[in-house]
């Protein structure tokens, strides 16, 4: 007996609810943009400069005491957050790990040794055995460059992909795929704004992976659309799209599930250091799967596709024979 995520012959009409899904996506995107401007992202030091110190103590964590100990040092804006490791929570272990963030100090790029020594001394007054397993410091100069590089990377990735799909398909497909991508990225940024999860360089890597994954999904659907457009020349575009999505649905769900299995395992057991990173990817897989069905295809339906393949048919099939061989 086989495990089947999707029944063998689905004939779902994905566009019957397109007004609702498309509307909901547009609303979610607007909400994300609003949240982004209202709440802002919880930028990590990679992007805003400053210092983070991870503390590991045997004594029960008391954020207030840490704050009081650091107050006399006049370091400006300080945030202290408890680090929660889901794997440790499963076993009921108490970790007493905290992350302290200090703003970039006036007149210095990365943090000076004197400041670090003072901070360590102040915290060791609470627990002499406290250790500092991770200290990161980024100066304003580098953080500015990192933002710039990150934005360029995302824009570059999207344009490269736009170009590739335009090359392999038609421009309408390209627009559909990129609309789905922008949708995924905007919603991911929205979630990061709402949940105030730390947004750092690793999240940019996650965003680009989402770009790759979401496209992977979209391209598989489009590939089938391309094939069915040739196969059923008389069929209405809407029906071709529905047919293609239904035919690839089983694969879409299977791949999403295997990827999610791997990611969830990493999320729960992979330690807190890559938590935000893995969270972004899980979210990306979910919205990426959704968007390739409901956004990319809907846009394609609205834009319409050139159906007159007769002129290029001979050439196109010739090209195909080559690729398949």
């Amino acid at each position, binding site marked *: 007996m*086989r*495990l089947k*995520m999707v029944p*063998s012959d689905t004939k779902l009409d994905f566009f019957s609810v397109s007004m609702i899904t498309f509307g909901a996506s547009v609303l979610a995107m607007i909400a994300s943009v609003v949240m982004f401007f209202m709440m802002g992202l919880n930028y990590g030091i990679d992007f805003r400069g400053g210092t983070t110190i991870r503390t590991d103590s045997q004594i029960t964590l008391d954020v207030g005491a840490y704050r009081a100990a650091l107050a006399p040092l006049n370091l400006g804006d300080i945030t202290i957050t408890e680090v929660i490791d889901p794997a440790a929570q499963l076993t009921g272990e108490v970790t007493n790990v905290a992350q302290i963030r200090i703003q970039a100090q006036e007149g210095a*790029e*990365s943090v000076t*040794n004197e400041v670090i*020594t003072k901070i360590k001394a102040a915290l060791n007054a609470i627990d002499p055995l406290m*250790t*500092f*397993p*991770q*200290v*990161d*410091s980024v*100066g304003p*100069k*580098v953080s500015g460059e990192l933002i710039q590089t990150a934005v360029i*990377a995302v824009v570059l*990735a999207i344009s*490269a992909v736009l170009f590739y799909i335009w090359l*392999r398909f038609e421009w309408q497909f390209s627009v559909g795929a990129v609309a789905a991508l922008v949708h995924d990225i905007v919603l991911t940024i929205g979630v990061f704004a709402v949940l105030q999860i730390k947004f750092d*360089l*690793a999240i*940019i*890597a996650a965003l*680009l*992976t989402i*770009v*790759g*994954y979401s*496209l992977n999904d979209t*391209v*598989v659907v489009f590939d*089938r659309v391309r*094939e069915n457009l040739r196969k059923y020349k008389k069929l209405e575009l809407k029906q071709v799209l529905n047919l293609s999505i239904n*035919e*690839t649905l*089983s*694969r879409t769900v*299977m*791949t999403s*599930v*295997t*990827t*999610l*299995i*791997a*990611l969830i395992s*990493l999320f*729960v*057991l*992979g*330690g807190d*250091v*890559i938590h935000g*990173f893995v969270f972004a*990817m899980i979210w990306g897989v979910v919205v990426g799967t959704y968007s390739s069905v409901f956004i990319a295809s809907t846009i394609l339906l609205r834009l319409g596709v050139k159906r007159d393949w007769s002129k290029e048919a001979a050439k196109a099939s010739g090209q195909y024979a080559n*690729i*398949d061989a």
Partner: protein
Amino acid sequence: MLQFSLWKKLLIWGVCALGILLASPNLFYTKVEESNDAKALIELAGVATPEQTAKADAWPAFMPSSLVNLGLDLRGGAHLLAEVQVGDVYASRMDGYWDEVKNALREERATIGGIRRQYDNPNELRVRIAEASQIAVAVAKVVEMRRPVVSLSGAGSFDINVTSEGADVVVTLSEAEKIATDKRTMDQSLEIIRRRVDEAGTREPTIQRQGTDRVLIQVPGIGSAEELKELIGKTAKLTFHVVIGTTGDENARLKSNQILLPDQEDKAVYYILEKTPVITGDHLTDAQPAFDQNNAAAVNFRLNTTGGRIFGEFTANNIGTLFAIVLDDEVVSAPRINSHIPGGSGIITGNFTIESTTKLSIQLRAGALPAKVIYLEERTIGPELGQDSIDAGRIASMIAFAAVLVFMVASYGLFGLFANIALIINVALIFGLLSAIGATLTLPGIAGIVLTIGMAVDANVLVFERIREELKTAKGPARAIELGYERAFSAIIDANITTLIAAVILFIMGSGPVRGFSITLGLGIITSVFTAIWVTRLLISIWLGRTRPKTIEV
């Protein structure tokens, strides 16, 4: 599509076997690492202790011994991004020209009158002459001193620009000379940083130049970035100056060619010294901890030939006067020159301990950095946190791996099993490639592998789903499988190339851990396409040939 020629079969199995072979040392990470270290030590020393031989032989010599490098976030260590203030050197270059300019202009004393250097801007050499009307003569005299810059880009240009402002001759470095100077400063800084980091004796430090004036320093195993900064940043600038007098007044009036420096021990005592040093640390060739005649800790030093000659002449001409040994702008001691000191070696005494002389001699040997270094970025990861990350990553990968294997068999039965064999080979290939190219595995890199495990089955899923569809039109198993592969091909290629584009862009734009992620993701895409298209298909082809089933269930 399902027929494989013999050479193709051999090639596919050959690639798989090679991948597994190259990946195998990573299964015995500690043993292989110890063996590699021991072999390196034996080679260095020429002889082997029995203990080293035992360790070296623990891993057979015929096996590949390249390992995946662990990134700082997994191994623990410190990362620094430093910026060398290359502009600092311009001022000392200008000081260097002063002697020459002074001598040249003195020859024209009759015409231009007395000369005096103006110290307003350290990046230029401004000389005021008494006879302002003769400025053209002075400028012409200095222009004669120009030397052509020897460099590819600076062909045809000279090292200095000479202009005049009223009664001042203004000498500045030309752009070509600045570029050449910057390059020298960077080369020298890199060399000194490398030597100092090496003195610390940690394994495999990375010291890389980035852009025009930055240095990336990564040292695994060092306690913290602060320690590393102290190691690099300590200037230990040694100079010898002629002593003009001592004073207790820190605001004592000085002539323009004098400086006031405090005594190292007694901060109330200040020395008035000649600004231009007799000898600088640049002339130092060696420094060793030692003891003086009173058995107090001291540092022995030796100068190079030029330094030895200058020092010899200086001591011969200045018997009876005091000279100050200045370390990092503090006077360590100011002995009286009792006799001519030829040969260019001497001893620095002062208030030292054995530890401080050891440290000082290391710093003196390494030489002073030519320019100030500021730190733009620094990261410290403790070894325990790194080990925690490795453990967490390992458990997460195992569970993810097992879950995907079970899920594939549950969904596709025997075909799922084929896909699983391909998946295992896929992971081996990733590790084999990572070891072979000496790539660095970071924590996001592990995430990349886990993501690849999830996504690698995608190509197989595409094919299997397609086979299921083709089976519905009942063409017989072999034909259905063949068509399944054929028709899924374009989707596999397009889907994977788009992800590869994202990985390549991450690799180009990213740095550190992000780059590590892009490497594993990119390699994972390539190997997963290979295993899905060739390995699974070969397995299915062999199975079809053996059993010749009438019907199949995918």
